[in-house]
């Protein structure tokens, strides 16, 4: 089983929907050490994503990912705009020439996205940022693909890993983003950005047959 243009579009929409449903939770988490706007910013980012999909007439996966990334970059939203926008932008070149993606190809595309994020930030797993969810999710996707899982199963394992990664941030002290300013006080509640990523991947997996 592979994902074509419509499959990718559905996957993205599914992720966006679940993130939006959790806007209040995300803002609440961000208000512990941040400025409480993460839910609003993610909602705006996901709105852009949906609008781009609706407007896109290219039927080309690479173009779609690029357009989604550029639109999210354009969301005035602090840290998350460039990180998440950069994530999708970086995925695009890896989808060059592809009309469908199997699990391995999907992993390759996501790995390119992750690499784009890691080029932008020095945050690594353990620093209590979205990377704590994103890195394990992409790793799990690759492992599942290597183990010949279906696209659906691979995305489900990625979502599980993202969820676990997000949960693990609860015990961590923030070393990046605004929350790092409150030091130890950031311990005890999960990172907002990591939670977003976890919700995004769960939404991806649920909407892929």
């Amino acid at each position, binding site marked *: 089983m592979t994902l074509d243009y419509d499959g990718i579009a559905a996957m993205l929409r599914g992720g966006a929907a679940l993130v939006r449903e959790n806007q209040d939770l995300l803002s609440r988490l961000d208000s512990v050490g941040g400025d409480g*706007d993460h839910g609003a910013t993610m909602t705006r980012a996901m709105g852009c994503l949906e609008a781009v999909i609706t407007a896109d007439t290219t039927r080309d996966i690479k173009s779609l990912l690029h357009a989604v990334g550029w639109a999210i970059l354009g969301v005035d939203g602090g840290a998350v705009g*460039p990180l998440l926008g950069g994530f999708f932008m970086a995925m695009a070149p890896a989808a060059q020439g592809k009309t469908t993606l199997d699990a391995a190809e999907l992993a390759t595309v996501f790995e390119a996205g992750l690499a784009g994020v890691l080029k932008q930030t020095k945050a690594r797993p353990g620093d209590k940022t979205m990377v704590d969810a994103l890195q394990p999710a992409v790793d799990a996707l690759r492992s599942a693909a290597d183990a010949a899982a279906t696209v659906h199963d691979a995305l489900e394992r990625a979502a599980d890993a993202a969820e676990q990664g997000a949960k693990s941030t609860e015990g961590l002290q923030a070393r990046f983003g605004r929350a790092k300013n409150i030091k130890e006080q950031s311990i005890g509640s999960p990172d907002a950005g990591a939670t977003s990523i976890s919700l995004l991947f769960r939404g991806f997996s649920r909407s892929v047959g």
Partner: protein
Amino acid sequence: MAMKKLINQPEALVSELLEGFAIAHEKKVRMEGSNLVVRAHPKATDKVALVTLGGSGHEPALSGFVGEGMLDISVPGEIFAAPGPPRVLEALRKANRDAGTLFVVLNHAGDVLSANLAMDMAKTEGLKVESVLTHEDISGGPRNEPEERRGLVGCLPVIKVAGAAAEMGKSLEECKAIAERMESNMATLALAVSGATHPSTGGVIAEIPDDIMVVGMGQHGEAGGGTQSLKSADETTDIMLTALIDDLTLKSGDNVLVLINGVGSTTLMELYIVLRRVKQGLAEKNITLARSLVGQYLTVQEMGGFQLCIARMDEELLALWDAPCDSPALTVK
């Protein structure tokens, strides 16, 4: 804390405030493109351009620094949120010239991420851009870990001296060197005595009990002692000044610029009382208060408190600081 702000729909906040800003300062600035704030009388294109970006809600910063002898373009974001790279790239393209563009970035995660992405894209397009990062908040970490230090009101002296240098026709390399010299010779510490409400969400920004103050806002306070009991103006000033003098290793005979930036509801009356004490404290160490600036330049809504920024000055920096400028937030004749 009840929100008692004169606003309309939160969604329209930034566009409405920019509309009013442009009306209020129509002789100095205007809006162009995707809500970019540009000079009403553009600088000659054979001179280096200055561009910055930053969240809104800190008025007059940062767009209030656009004008003659200061910034050419400011890219205002949403409330407390950096503008995304597309609008920043648009600003860099608009500023583009053979003389080059100096891009002033305050060290906050969102701003830096957005600025770097836009810079990369601009360079890919062949634009001549150099950036300078301001990070002078000594409560973030020690001087040798500049990445941990946030950019506070120190962006103003950096923009002022680099803007004056650009206006004089100095090269991009010279302007950048001046900006960096100013940057590396300054230190800021923030005091908060009371919180504020977020104008779009209504959420509380910093809840501070009645008898408490926080030196090094949002920090545990290696420098300045962090959360502590409320003190008199003189005691508070002494604590902050000592930490800044230490950080800068100021010595007898040094000349400094002192910038006291009210962040919201703290009155000018109080800021003057603090300046008086700063001058006394400097004099005790035989350090000369060569210049000062007191007022609200970079605010955090109606938060109570101020940022104390001290900068070691040399002759050239002093001359650039004194040079004329004409922006909404600062005019020097």
